[in-house]
C-alpha cells in the first residue's frame, strides 16, 4: 500500500484508539455505574467479533468448502473451551485438510 495513504489511515486508527484509552484515564475521577452503558459495552466485543467473523470467514480461504470446514471445526472446538490457540490451529488444519483433499484427491 502507498505509504502516504497508509499513514493517513494509521494516524486515524492509532490516534482515536489512544485518545479513547488515555482521556478517561487522565480526566475521569469516578467509576461509571450506569448499568445500561456498562451492559452495552460488555456486549460490544462479542457482537463486533461475531459480525466480523460471519459471514466474512466464508470468503477467507481459497474456497467456500474449506472455509466452512474451518468455521465448523472452530465452533465445535471452541464449544469445548479449548482456548484460543487450539481453536485457531484446529480451524487452520481443517482448511488445509479440505484444500489438500480437493487438490490431490478429487
Amino acid at each position, binding site marked *: *500500500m502507498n505509504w502516504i495513504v*497508509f499513514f*493517513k*489511515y*494509521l494516524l*486515524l*486508527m*492509532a490516534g*482515536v484508539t489512544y485518545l*479513547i*484509552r*488515555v*482521556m*478517561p*484515564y*487522565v480526566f*475521569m475521577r469516578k467509576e461509571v455505574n450506569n*448499568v*445500561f452503558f456498562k*451492559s*452495552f459495552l*460488555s*456486549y*460490544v*466485543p*462479542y*457482537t*463486533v*467479533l*461475531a*459480525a*466480523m*467473523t*460471519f*459471514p*466474512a*470467514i466464508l470468503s*477467507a*480461504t*481459497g474456497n467456500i468448502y*474449506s472455509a466452512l470446514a*474451518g468455521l465448523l471445526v*472452530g*465452533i465445535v472446538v*471452541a*464449544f469445548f*473451551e*479449548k*482456548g*484460543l*490457540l*487450539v*481453536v*485457531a490451529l484446529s*480451524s*487452520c488444519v481443517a*482448511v*488445509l485438510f479440505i*484444500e489438500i483433499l480437493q*487438490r490431490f484427491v478429487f
Partner: protein
Amino acid sequence: MNSFKKGFTDGLPIGLGYLAVSFSFGILAVAGGLNVWQATLISMTNLTSAGQFAGLTIMVSGGSIVEMIISQFIINLRYSLMSISLSQHIDKSMKLPQKLFFGEFHTDEIFAVSMGRPEKLGRKYFLGVIIAPYIGWSLGTFLGAVCGEILPAMIVNALGVALYGMFIAIVVPPMKHSWKMSIVVGIAVLMSVCFAYVPGLKNISSGFSVIICAVTASLFGALVFPVKEEKKE
C-alpha cells in the same frame, strides 16, 4: 519480588498469547496488500485485536475517514471503561506523564491481570507488565507478515483463518454459558449476513456494517438483558 518483576511475570503469558494472535494478523495484513513494515507499524501503534482487524479491512477496501474513526471509536470504546477502573487502582507514582504513556497499553488482558492485583499499582509494575505483551504483539505481527510473503498460497489460506478461529474461541464459550449472550450474538450475526447478501445493504461498506450490527445487537442486549455487576473478567 519487586513490582517491576511482578509486572513482568504477569505480562509474560500474555506476551506469548499475543505472539500467536498477532502472527495471524500479520498474515492477513500482507494478504490484504500491506507490506511487512506497515503491518508491524499498525501493531506497534495500536495494540488492539478487533480494532486493528476492522481498521485493516477498512484500509484494504479504501474506506472513508469517517468510517475509520467511527469503527475505531465503537470497537475500542470498552478500553475507556478499563482506563477508568484502572485510574482507581494506581498509586502516587502515576502522574500525568506516566498516565499519558501507560494509557496506550491498556488491553483486555493487561487490564485483567492489573485489576487482579490486590494492591495499588505504580509505574514500575506497569513498566514490567507491558514489556512482554508489547514485544509479543509487534514481533508476532512482523513474523506473520514475513511468513505471509514467503509461504505458499495454500498454507497462507489456511493460516488466514487463524484470526477468525480465535474470534470464534472468544465468542462461543460465553454463548454456551448464557442464552442471553447467544441471542445478542445471534442478532449481530443475522444482521451481518443481511449486510453481506441482501441487495442494497450489500453496498454498505464492511466497516460500517460491522458497527451497525454490533451497536444494534449490543443496544438490544443492554435494553432487554442488562448485565448485573461483575467485578472482574
